[in-house]
């Protein structure tokens, strides 16, 4: 065991695999390049490795300053991992920053001997960025570095300029920020099929996941609802960029469940009820998407608000006319089939993009006399742990939001992953698969995707094609 691994094993919940240990050594080597770009699929242990680098650095240089720039959803996870590794860590948000200003002096409030963990979005705010670049950092780590695009590239460039070591980690290809010379950077790529365990044996021995497309037909009433919602979208698309975004969200909620759609339609319908004193704008709803956070508010002028409200009201009536949800019925049939041959190892994870859909599915599944656990980003840490522990111990069904899958949880024991809503981007799909199809898997993963057989969203749609490319094809249920 290397000195690094010894140091980390002491009180830490993890040990490093050879590829992780080698990366840590490479970043911290005195002769190493100042910028290291780590590219590796989700689920190969990048986060653990980044924590190990900071732990080792602070072990060797107890007064070093270290900065982690991570996605907002991962801040707590990184702080927790660092602390479990015995490394002081401080989550810095606006409130913490104000208290640091209040207690510090001469701008010297960024802590020595600890890792400051900030979201990229927060770090790029002008006053925060100016403060970050006013000190020298021994180590700056940017996780999910591919998300530092556009205005955020400037953050990496400026913070990188005051960092002795800059580590960029990503599952995707990225280009180096302006100002960072290629000769100053080293790229290390982790390929799943090349990684070995501590005994030198290949780690990737489980067959690749297999895809099962679960088709279902929309009823006439569901078709009418689709038409009603489709009538709303062009009005929204013709408006501001936010309203165009709202149209996309509306379509996604339509494809997800009546519960997700109903919540959005109610807010749109309410826009025409609001009395507007100024006669100029009426505010609509915030983004519904789970994990979207505090999204922008949409505004409509009076005539548009009335039109949108009227169409939303009509669509709500169409929802009321739907007594059977074909997609939920298809899920019920799939679950019955999966649970028919009861195997102790069976662990089914059903994923949706919308929290309202998750609650809807919980009600639907419990209504069928089955037990299930719920997991979403809004849950407190104790409730999350309880859900995951129960699911792990008793098995069967976990209903989870897609957003919570971006929060570093390990679901390698899931045997069947059900995509109730199919992600529309490659990154989102990889993020999900990385939580489930990762090291420690004991068996092949079965991915089931609910897909419409009739209408405009039929099986040939873009998300289904993307899924086929990423996972592979096998038509028909498991």
């Amino acid at each position, binding site marked *: 065991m290397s000195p690094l691994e010894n140091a980390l094993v002491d009180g830490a919940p993890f040990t490093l695999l050879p590829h992780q240990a080698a990366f840590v050594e490479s970043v911290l080597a005195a002769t190493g390049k100042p910028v290291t770009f780590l590219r590796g699929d989700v689920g190969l242990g990048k986060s653990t490795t980044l924590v190990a680098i900071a732990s080792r650095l602070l072990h060797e240089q107890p007064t070093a300053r270290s900065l982690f720039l991570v996605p907002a959803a991962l801040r707590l996870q990184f702080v927790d991992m660092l602390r479990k590794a015995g490394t*002081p860590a401080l989550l810095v948000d606006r409130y913490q920053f104000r208290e640091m200003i209040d207690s510090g002096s001469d701008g010297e409030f960024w802590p020595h001997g600890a890792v400051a963990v900030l979201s990229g979005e927060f770090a790029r705010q002008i006053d925060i960025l100016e403060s970050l670049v006013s000190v020298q950092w021994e180590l700056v780590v940017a996780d999910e570095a591919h998300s530092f695009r556009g205005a955020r590239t400037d953050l990496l460039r400026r913070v990188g300029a005051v960092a002795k070591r800059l580590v960029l980690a990503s599952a995707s290809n990225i280009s180096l920020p302006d100002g960072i010379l290629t000769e100053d950077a080293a790229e290390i790529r982790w390929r799943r099929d090349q990684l070995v365990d501590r005994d030198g044996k290949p780690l990737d021995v489980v067959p690749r996941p297999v895809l099962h497309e679960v088709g279902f037909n929309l009823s006439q009433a569901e078709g009418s609802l689709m038409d009603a919602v489709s009538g709303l979208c062009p009005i929204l698309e013709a408006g501001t960029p936010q309203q165009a975004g709202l149209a996309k969200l509306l379509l996604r909620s339509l494809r997800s469940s009546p519960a997700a759609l109903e919540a959005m339609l109610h807010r749109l319908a309410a826009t025409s009820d609001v009395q507007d004193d100024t006669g100029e704008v009426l505010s609509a709803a915030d983004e519904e998407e789970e994990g979207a956070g505090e999204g922008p508010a949409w505004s409509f002028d009076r005539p548009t608000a009335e039109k949108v409200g009227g169409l939303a009201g009509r669509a709500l009536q169409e929802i009321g006319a739907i007594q059977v949800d074909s997609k939920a019925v298809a899920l019920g049939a799939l679950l019955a089939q999966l649970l028919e041959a009861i195997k102790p190892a069976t662990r089914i994870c059903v994923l949706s993009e919308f929290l309202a859909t998750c609650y809807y599915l919980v009600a639907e599944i419990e209504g069928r006399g089955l037990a299930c656990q719920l997991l979403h980003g809004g849950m*407190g840490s104790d409730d999350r742990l309880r859900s995951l522990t129960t699911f792990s111990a008793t098995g069967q069904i976990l209903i989870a939001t897609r957003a919570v899958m971006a929060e570093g949880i390990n679901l390698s024991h899931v045997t069947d992953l059900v995509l109730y809503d199919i992600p529309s981007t490659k990154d989102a799909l990889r993020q999900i698969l990385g939580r489930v199809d990762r090291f420690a898997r004991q068996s092949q993963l079965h991915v089931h995707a609910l897909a419409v057989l009739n209408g405009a969203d039929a099986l040939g749609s873009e998300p289904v094609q993307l899924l086929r490319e990423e996972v592979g094809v096998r038509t028909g249920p498991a």
Partner: protein
Amino acid sequence: MAAPISSLRLLDHSAAAKELDLASELFHRINRIIPQNQVLLTVPPSCRARDAVALMQQHGYSQVPVVDNGEVLGVFSFRSFAGHAAGATLDEWSRQKCAPGDLRVDDCLEQFQFARVTEEMISVFDAMDRDNGVLIGTPERLVGVLTPMDFLRYLYQVASPFVMVSEIELALRALIRSAMSQEDILAAAKRCLSSVYGGEDRVPTLLEDMSFDNYQSLISHGENWTHFEPVLGSTRTRASAKLKEINAIRNDLFHFRREITLKDHQTLADHRNWLLNKIKQVEGHRKGEVRP
């Protein structure tokens, strides 16, 4: 000066650390009241009053700190400007050959009290009442500006989920009563709550004695749904899903498990409005029935 390492290391002693870390979240101190996305706007002392007023209007602010070389000299506000503008006669303005808008902001300063982010909110009540605002930080290091509206928004944000949950709970009781007679309620409660309470005899007989969980079970139970379908509409699964979502937020709220997010707030408001509509429909039917 760097933060002492020893105090930072204390943050790592798990349970105790979590509480210490959360101190500013657990207590309603000034730091929580300053809007998280507040953009601090300042003007130099040489700024003309008309430019400062335009800037304030553009940002929707009613005062702006005047800062010179990083140090706060005072505050320029609509009030301080009005006081100076109204204090001179037309003759005096003519003699000076200027209009009120030509004044420099440092000619119209007023002094606000400073407070620290870690202070209790009550400590600035008097200053807020007197000046209509408080500066947060120190003259050399301004952190933010706190106004009465910030207080109002914060207190509304803290209180409104509790108010909405009470409205939801009372509305549910009223809807259950409108859907079922007292005898039906009792029979339904025995049917679906006996196992929870350990026997029919132990099941509460009054809605007021039941929990939100009990209401949810009562409404969602397959055999009871026929009573509720005309009142709640939609399908049992959809109604049940809404009640489950409310119940989860309610439990987190009342047991102080986590901070209620904007999304939770929106969800509560949506479901509250759903029930309000149902109550209105029930009321409408009743009025229709008694109309001659």
